[in-house]
């Protein structure tokens, strides 16, 4: 019950944040040089054509009127019509939302699966050859630009050994997973570099705590000591790191989406900015903001589940 109440109150807190974000997104777009009508007509339009199209798009109204119309659209649960696509934004956006969520979700799952055993092993056997190897590997992976690593892996795993498709998204669920495996793995590498380090040092710190000695002294098997006591108590900081990084990944998938031709939100955002598709960019900004808040909310719930001292209020 308290979780439901907590979620509702957090979502309510979101409203002023979103208002702020809409103002910034709205104004930034208008400050940028270039306007949709000129871009659409380009070489073909006379000044009169451009003026007529500007009026038709409603962009000749005062800024504050346009802003109020935008808020009105949101209040009605829609983002209005896209200038470039000439269609309702809602369905366009939802269609692009799933590939991005699938990509981010899959990469997070991969990151967690890789992080937990490696962090535990390297913390317990710190200073070992494996510890150094893991550290070296992930620093190297993190230092490589994602697009470059992406192209390299495609060359290896799609051309030389054709296991994965070069790019695309597929039509069915197995095909989606097959197409998303490589890009998700590349994103996960970057995440792992952060989470392994964070979880490893947290585990090392907890290993020195008195209650760990107590647990050992009362004769618990080492496995139980490590997983029930040490691991659970080490998770807090890593959850934060994972949440912050995942929020960043959501906005930053554009490079990977472009390299792998995934029809997600990132590529839509870049295309919409180029076309000065104001309503679409506004809609996307709000969507990104909501996603980031939801991830932080999940992280808060995660804290409460891991640590009974944290209460959701």
């Amino acid at each position: 019950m308290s979780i439901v109440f907590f979620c509702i109150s957090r979502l309510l807190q979101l409203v002023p944040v979103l208002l702020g974000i809409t103002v910034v997104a709205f104004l930034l777009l208008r400050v940028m040089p270039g306007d949709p009508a000129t871009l659409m007509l380009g070489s073909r339009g006379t000044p009169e054509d451009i003026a007529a199209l500007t009026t038709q798009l409603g962009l000749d109204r005062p800024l504050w009127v346009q802003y109020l119309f935008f808020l009105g659209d949101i209040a009605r649960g829609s983002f209005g019509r896209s200038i470039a696509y000439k269609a309702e934004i809602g369905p366009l956006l939802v269609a692009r939302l799933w590939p991005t969520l699938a990509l981010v979700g899959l990469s997070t799952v991969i990151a967690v699966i890789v992080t937990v055993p490696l962090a535990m092993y390297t913390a317990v056997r710190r200073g070992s050859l494996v510890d150094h190897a893991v550290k070296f590997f992930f620093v190297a992976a993190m230092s490589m630009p994602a697009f470059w690593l992406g192209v390299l892996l495609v060359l290896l795993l799609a051309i030389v050994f054709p296991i994965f498709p070069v790019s695309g998204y597929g039509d069915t669920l197995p095909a989606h997973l097959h197409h998303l495996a490589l890009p998700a793995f590349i994103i996960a590498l970057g995440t792992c570099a952060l989470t392994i380090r964070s979880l490893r040092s947290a585990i090392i710190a907890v290993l020195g705590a008195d209650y760990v000695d107590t647990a050992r002294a009362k004769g618990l098997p080492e496995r139980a000591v490590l997983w029930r006591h040490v691991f659970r108590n080490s998770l807090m900081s890593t959850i934060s790191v994972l949440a912050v990084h995942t929020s960043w990944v959501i906005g930053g998938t554009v490079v990977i989406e472009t390299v792998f031709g995934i029809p997600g939100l990132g590529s839509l955002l870049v295309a919409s900015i180029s076309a000065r598709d104001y309503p679409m960019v506004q809609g996307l900004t709000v969507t990104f903001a909501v996603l980031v808040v939801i991830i932080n909310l999940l992280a808060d719930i995660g804290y409460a589940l891991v640590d009974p001292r944290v209460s959701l209020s």
Partner: protein
Amino acid sequence: MSKSFRTGSAVKTGFIGALLLSSALVAQAHAATFRLGVASDALTVDPIASSDNPSIWTELLIYDQLVRPSKDGTKLEPGIAESWTVSPDGKEFRFKLRDAKFSDGAPVTAADVAFSLKRAAGDKSEWGRFFRPITSYEVVDDHNIVMKLDKPFTPILNNLAMFSASILPQKLVEAQGAAFFEHPVGSGPFVLKSWSRGQKQELVKNPNYWEKGKPSLDAASIEVVPEDNSRVLKLKAGELDAIIGVPFNQAESLKSDPNVQVSVAPVFRIDLVQLNTTKAPFDNLAVRQALNYALDKDAIIKGILRGNAKPATSSIPVMAYHNTELKPYPLDLAKAKELLKQGGVPNGFKTSMLVSAGDVTARQVASAIQASLKKIGVEVELQTIEGSSQFSTTKSGNFQMSLSYATSDTIDPDQLVGFTAVNPERANAFHTQWKSEKLNELYAQERTTLDGPERGKQFKEIEALTHEGAPFIFLYAPSQPYASRKTVSGFEVLPTSNYSLKDVVLK
């Protein structure tokens, strides 16, 4: 020993398993469909609301127009109109329609033609100005229509070959409104079956298409692969049958792939440097000519475009009525310095040039221009600018030099002349503000002169005036490399940059 062997074989088994799985998945997707890779998705298939190339290209596959450009881009050939006549005064056009059907089986009638063209000329159309010279439509019967103009306007016939003049079924569009374009019906060779935004458009053959035996494909999918490298790799891996937009530096290496064939399309495009003639020293003709003499165009074409371009003589590429007597400005540094002296800047000057960000070829060409102009003492600072901002920046006149290009939607030079050479018309001579009263006069004449040698002479003179006036540094007219697998025949990118699929055969 035995342990490591087990691990090895486990890895191997997993590897082979993955291989089988992936080939099964790939095979499933491949079912006699022609798969074309393009860089960006269409935005809409409403012909009067499109201005981006991917939308236009899809429209040209699913709709027909009265007339259409021939494949080599030199003349107009019959489309939905089987034949047509133009009255001697150029004010009356009679079209006779063929027996064609829309993909739903309904006949294409003269009423549909009148409806579609009135719609294209209407208030909601982004292309109204192209069709408003037609002042009346007279539907004689189902197969005959007469259009009248108040005064002659020669480019109209070419405008009728544009995507925006696509013939739509009146009944369906009127009944469905905007929803029509979610499941559009046309009389072109293909039908848009489904569209996953940002991912692909799936086309199937129009069983009612009027050209006998075409298209030979049952289906085609146009897949969005934004990244140049990925597109090339997907072609090599056999995940695509053809791709357009092959980067110049990859065209060479693709040629060495035994499964791939590379071709180049001579598209109507001209690359040039806009000079802001309202700013000193670009207001001086001698200085503008000096810049043209200082550039080694052949070296740029050879080094950066790998030979895929022709040096430009003016702001019009080689198309109908081209002036073959003009020669490109040659590289002549002595003459360039002499002209700078005449222009009052004997020691050169400092200036800046806008370059579109993210366009690799443009960046390389800009550096080459910078190096060339340095030899006559002109120091150019390169200013990288986002592609969408470049047009509005030059339009507002807030620039000195800008590296850009222009393309044509029609095979008639009227469009590019109006855009790059006439001031004010549409763009104040592509934002250079250069003005030649003589040229403006010729433009007005050309638009009312019937097609023929007389009109050709006017265009040739327009080109000569532009060449002489040098409001640009004329660079080159590039060709566009594209590639397909050897199992494909008949795939072609046309001079108007769109591609034809109706002659494609998959082996």
